[in-house]
């Protein structure tokens, strides 16, 4: 490539756009559907129910310990599809790039997207690139959309939670959120934190095969964290949820950073974790499957679905008290003292 930064012509649809596609995107996302470069991807379908999801990624900084915006964009959409119990197959990727963006960084991000897609077993079959004038966007935004197929008559959704079910969390909370906060705004805490960005579709497939009828709800607690997702489940199902503070897994380094900044890890983002509401009879089997996988090694039961306090999430605190766990309103702001 002659340029080392993105110029407006890279988004013009002309020669430079073509070059960007040919030299960076196609080799990285290598697959038969994309390589045809038709106006739309023609993909093989099957009769049944399809899961379809889209998400936009505007994370700052673009590169952070544990990943970058590229793998985050792939994993995020893969996980959204997997949380309905579907098998994710195809993704699209739309890039909005600010003029002046370094081609080398773009290459690194595209390579990460390709690696994440390979790891998750999905193909990036459609895409789009727009370049906007300097200042009109913050470096790089990525939108990914994805489709997947639901096997059989699987019904997984937030309304299914029922009293007696167990609440499982696949690992430690707040790793991604606190990594980003630590990196952003020039925070210089020398904390050993890194993002948990990962695709969870493999894990979900193994959970489903261990307990095909026992998994009622799957959600990935991204923005808003575990607390917000539990509230969404409580509201959708009309059931109450009780969690136990002593069971909540948080890495020491992450919890230290949270304490320092006055951030509650229950509300911080995760990008490689899932919450599963599981029939009590299957809970141990699902937990065993989770723990066999490196992505679920720290999985644990964090609470129960209850007939008490319908629509509410209540926590038994580590000292034996009780309190409400509310939905997050706005972002968490670090405190004064």
């Amino acid at each position, binding site marked *: 490539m002659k340029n080392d930064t993105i110029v407006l012509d890279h988004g013009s649809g002309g020669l430079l756009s073509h070059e960007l596609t040919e030299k960076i995107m196609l080799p990285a996302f290598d697959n038969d559907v994309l390589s045809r470069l038709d106006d739309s991807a023609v993909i093989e379908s099957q009769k049944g129910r399809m899961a379809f999801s889209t998400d936009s990624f505007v994370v700052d900084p673009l590169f952070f310990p544990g990943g970058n915006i590229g793998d985050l964009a792939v994993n995020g959409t893969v996980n959204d599809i997997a949380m309905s119990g579907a098998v994710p197959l195809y993704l699209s990727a739309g890039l909005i790039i600010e003029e002046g963006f370094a081609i080398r960084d773009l290459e690194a991000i595209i390579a990460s997207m390709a690696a994440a897609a390979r790891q998750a077993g999905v193909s990036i079959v459609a895409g789009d690139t727009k370049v906007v004038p300097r200042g009109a966007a913050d470096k790089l935004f990525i939108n990914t959309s994805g489709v997947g197929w639901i096997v059989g008559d699987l019904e997984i959704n937030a309304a299914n939670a029922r009293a007696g079910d167990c609440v499982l969390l696949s690992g430690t909370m707040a790793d991604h959120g606190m990594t980003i906060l630590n990196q952003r705004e020039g925070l210089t805490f020398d904390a050993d934190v890194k993002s948990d960005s990962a695709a969870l579709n493999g894990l979900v497939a193994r959970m489903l095969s261990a307990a095909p009828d026992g998994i009622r709800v799957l959600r990935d607690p991204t923005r808003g964290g575990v607390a917000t997702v539990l509230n969404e489940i409580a509201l959708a199902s009309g059931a109450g949820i009780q969690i136990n503070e002593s069971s909540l897994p948080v890495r020491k380094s992450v919890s230290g950073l949270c304490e320092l900044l006055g951030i509650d890890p229950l509300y911080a983002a995760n990008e490689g974790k899932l919450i599963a509401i599981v029939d009590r009879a299957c809970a141990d089997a699902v937990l065993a499957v989770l723990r066999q996988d490196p992505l679920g090694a720290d999985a644990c039961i964090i609470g129960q679905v209850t007939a008490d306090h319908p629509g509410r999430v209540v926590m038994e605190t580590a000292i034996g008290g009780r309190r409400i766990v509310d939905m997050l309103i706005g972002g968490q702001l670090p405190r*004064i003292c």
Partner: protein
Amino acid sequence: MEHTEQYRDGKLCASLAGQITSMCTEDMRIMEVCGTHTVSIFRHGIRTLLPRSLSLISGPGCPVCVTDQAELDAFIEIANMPDTILATFGDLMRVPATGSSLEKEKARGKDIRMVYSTMDALALARANPDRQVVFAGVGFETTAPTIAASILAAHAENLSNYSVYCAHKLVPPALEALMGLSGVEIHGFLLPGHVSVIIGGQAYASFFEKHRIPCVIAGFEPADMLMGIQELTEMISSNTPGLENAYGRAVSWQGNPRAQKVMDRVFKTANARWRGLGEIAKSGLSIREEFAAFDAARRFSIDPRPAAAPAGCACGEVLTGRCLPPDCRLYGTACTPADPLGPCMVSSEGTCAAYWKYNR
């Protein structure tokens, strides 16, 4: 056992709660002065462990909540000045001023930066020599020393584009003012840990001698607070008031002399307006003449006009223990965390926000 975990030990906390219950044979009203105490009490579910006869009342120790409307308006005025960057701690962003908030002004394109320390604000000033960087100086004795240190650093570097709008408040004069209010019934004070690290136990001595009311300095972990409450209930039930320190691992009688020296070098005491308490003599800080160049109020000739709090807002009564959040007619209707009217609902340390978040 981790350092903090020993202060979150369930058995220890249950034992302390049991001792408190056995001593609470009559109605007792204890005020936790500090906003961080309020949040910690709710976050750990401490109220649910204590007897109904013991009321924990939130006091005027949330720095955002006690910031007067006129001061909030001054921050907005500064943010609207051309070529100005307003630097602020995060929890001030959403606090409603008259008709706006820093968050709304930022969305309108004003350059408002959230910083994590005053040194970040200084760095902003160094990086933007053609802009004026103003730090929104709110908070108690806990934050004042670091803000004083930033002024000393700016002075030493001859930074001509850094200043502080000083809206600092002091805790001991507020306690004194509370005792003079009618309708406030308090049997003991749980004194703030962070503030006391700086000013030391000695700072409350004259207050205690005058009023002979039980006072205990406490930390913020559940066992810290329960120890403080236990000492208070013991003093109240035996009618033997004292000024005690249940946070010995962080607070000394003298406090932190170095921090006090930095604060005294830059600030002098001044009258200050508190939301809910009104004007209290010598309860705030102003920047000394020697550092007038770093005083944003003087540099930009800001003369804050008294501004009315939102109509019907009972934040003032809540902050002084004269009513509980649910007693406010706006609570949960016109005023919610999603659409707050008063600062007690918007601040992460606010009493109304804590009630809403943890106690509905």
